[in-house]
């Protein structure tokens, strides 16, 4: 159990960092939409629409790393499985 929790914590931390990096390493807050600007040629106004897109921010990263830390911490409460020698 101890080892499983530690592996899970490591996986969570690594996945969170990879996802954060892959989506542009946004150093702001997490966003669920991104602005898309298009130019109206007659008026010259830049129209702003929002496209649904998940952009994890530092809050996402922090929460995932905290979760990984909690899992690793909980794992310390489990004892390492000891093998008993039958002889």
């Amino acid at each position: 159990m101890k080892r499983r929790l530690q592996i899970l914590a490591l996986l969570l931390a690594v996945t969170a960092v990879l996802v954060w990096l892959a989506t542009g390493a946004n150093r702001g807050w997490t966003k669920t939409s991104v602005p898309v600007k298009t130019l109206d040629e007659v008026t010259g106004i830049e129209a702003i629409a929002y496209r649904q897109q998940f952009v994890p921010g530092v809050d996402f990263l922090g929460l995932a790393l905290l979760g990984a830390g909690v899992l690793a911490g909980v794992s310390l409460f489990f004892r390492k499985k000891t093998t008993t020698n039958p002889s």
Partner: protein
Amino acid sequence: MKTILCILTALVSLATAALAGPQTFDFKDPKGVNNAVFKLDATLESINGSANGISGTIIFDPENPAATKGRIVVATASLHVPNPMMKQHLHSALWLDVAKYPEIVFETLELKNVKTTGDTTTADVAGKFTVKGVTQTITAPAKLTYLKDKLGQRVPNQKGDLIVIRATFTIKRTDYGINPSAPQDKVADEINLTLSIAGAAPRP
């Protein structure tokens, strides 16, 4: 023949003069390009968002831009920020109280320092700005561009004129009771607003 030509010319001149009078421009844009962008500094990153629920009318006379009058309305519920929790806070009673105050309104009082070059007029627009039920008189520098006969290029089978208004100004959120207790070192008091809107005056 000469007399008929003279009469026709006079009639055309009269008709043109009549058309060039004050026109009512509607800002409910069918293409949905009208927007108001807001920005205020905050911890970690600035709060950037926009609103596209623009409506209202402006009476504009190309021959006398100084006499421009009107009212622009922004639907408070159309304010959007990319972070869902931030948006929830923004719409809440502590911030803009969207449920109780569904509109942000700017009503013109007068235009000062009016300068017109070609189809473009710049002016300092004084008006009453109402947010969250609080009305303050403000002055915002604005640029008005009159686009004669351009409506057909945006809306097929319609004739008429367009007017584009751009304005950038700053307000203080504490002046309007927008979460006045929020610490200003975390969320700035000043909100920068940029308005880019186009209105149409169709002709039969």
